[in-house]
């Protein structure tokens, strides 16, 4: 059943319990990396081939001079204009009937071009299988009309799942509600970036604080095709002219 699905992650509701991470690993049979113990509660570290959800922990100053803790469950954004899909040379990365972005494990050959392209540090290279891996939006669960594991497990409904248009409506209403309550720093991320993300986030700080490029920096790899090829062409022409001048016959007798 084709539909356009989306996540809406409301960071103001996240309590950092990591149930989403656990449910994701459980459902998708991801063993995870050995836990890293640093100076915070984040022992997951980053999104990669084993971590398809990652709960970030951020301390921030509030406008009234206090300190607040904000948590955000990060995930693949399933961009409408996906950088990974754009560069993938094997067509392993496809858009599914749910409008999500999926790496076909039987097609991917592990070239890792998608990793170089993804602006959100989502995709990781799995040394065991030799494949690029990331969140599938629980493609198998979607096909069975089930909610993705992370959203299903989230106890505070910080992660919401549904049709993308509904998620946008809910996100917009929530933003208005929070701003109405005086939370002027609240903002929505993902409405416009990369043609609209399929994972929207309600943030309480600038996007870059959460490892999300702002609107000016959310750009596609292909932006560089023309200027890089033109630079190469100019160098080729100059190089050839130099080569012909230097290597042409001297005009003298042999």
């Amino acid at each position, binding site marked *: 059943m084709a539909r356009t699905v989306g996540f809406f992650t409301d960071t103001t509701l996240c309590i950092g319990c990591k149930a989403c991470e656990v449910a994701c690993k459980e459902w998708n049979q991801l063993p995870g990396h050995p836990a890293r113990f640093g100076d915070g509660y984040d022992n997951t570290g980053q999104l990669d081939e084993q971590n398809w959800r990652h709960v970030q922990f951020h301390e921030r100053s509030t406008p009234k001079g206090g300190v607040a803790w904000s948590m955000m469950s990060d995930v693949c954004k399933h961009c409408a204009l996906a950088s990974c899909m754009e560069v993938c040379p094997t067509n392993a990365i496809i858009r599914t009937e749910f409008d999500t972005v999926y790496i076909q494990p039987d097609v991917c050959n592990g070239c890792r071009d998608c990793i*170089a392209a993804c602006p959100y540090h989502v995709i990781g290279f799995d040394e065991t299988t030799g494949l690029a891996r990331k969140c599938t939006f629980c493609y198998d669960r979607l096909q069975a009309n089930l909610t993705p594991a992370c959203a299903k497990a989230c106890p505070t409904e910080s992660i919401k799942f549904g049709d993308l248009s509904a998620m946008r409506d809910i996100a917009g209403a929530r933003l208005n509600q929070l701003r109405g309550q005086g939370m002027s720093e609240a903002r929505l991320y993902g409405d416009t970036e990369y043609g609209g993300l399929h994972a929207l986030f309600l943030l309480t700080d600038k996007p870059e604080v959460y490892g999300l490029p702002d609107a000016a920096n959310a750009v596609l790899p292909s932006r560089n095709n023309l200027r890089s090829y033109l630079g190469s062409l100019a160098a080729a022409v100059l190089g*050839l002219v130099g080569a012909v001048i230097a290597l042409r016959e001297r005009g003298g007798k042999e």
Partner: protein
Amino acid sequence: MPQHFVAPPQWEWYIVWYFFLGGLAGGAYALGAILRLFGDRRDAGAARLAFLVALPALAICPILLTLDLGRPLRFWHMLIDSRTMTLNFKYWSPMSVGVWALLIFSAFAFLSFLEAVLGEERFQLFRGAFGRFLLVLGTISGLFLAGYTGVLLSVSNQPIWSDTWTLGGLFLASGLSVAAAALGLLTRLSAGEESTEVKLSRADLYFIVLELALLIAFFVSLGTMGTRLLEPRWLLLWALVLAGTLVPLVLRRLAPSAGPAVLASCLVLLGGLALRIVVIFGAQT
């Protein structure tokens, strides 16, 4: 400064050597073709050497690329869509374009190699206007291979790589310089025509000037982002890059064919390799 949150693709030594050998192969073919098209009979030996170098250097490239894949046996997925069994070509993805360029250039490099081995008498494909046309096409595909490697890096969201327009041109100029140095060395080793060696040395002078200009443009286009590449751990490699450009620039002007020319060529080869190492590793850390 541009924001970057991307993960490194772990393109490492296989890719460094691919870029180096691809640049050498493409550059060597171009120089061989130009010697053939614009040189005189005394240059025939060096042109033959160029074609003898281009194919072996190129032949290593697909091996390196295949070994770099997580699933080497699926290398053919680059060319053929394994789901539909139709040809795969995405003009907006340099990796896809590059695989085809590699294949097309291989055909020209193979034919020219055959001619170099069998001799013009026994292999007459490159005679006449059609032969010259083939050499021009081979040169275009070879230079494309040398340059697209930089475009491949730039068409990403990696810091440094995606923040400059210069990498394609830089690798192309460096590929030509490396090829001129390699051919100069081989001409000397094979006791070839000295006047050709002098001409190759002069050509390299132009390539080095072009490379230096693009190096400056590289850092100018990066702006403050470029400081990442100037951390202490990269300075030895930059020293090699400068030793492979500035020193040969002086040496080649002093003595285009004597002992200093050998030193200059060795430094150019080393500098060309160092350039690729610092650009590839420097952006991924």
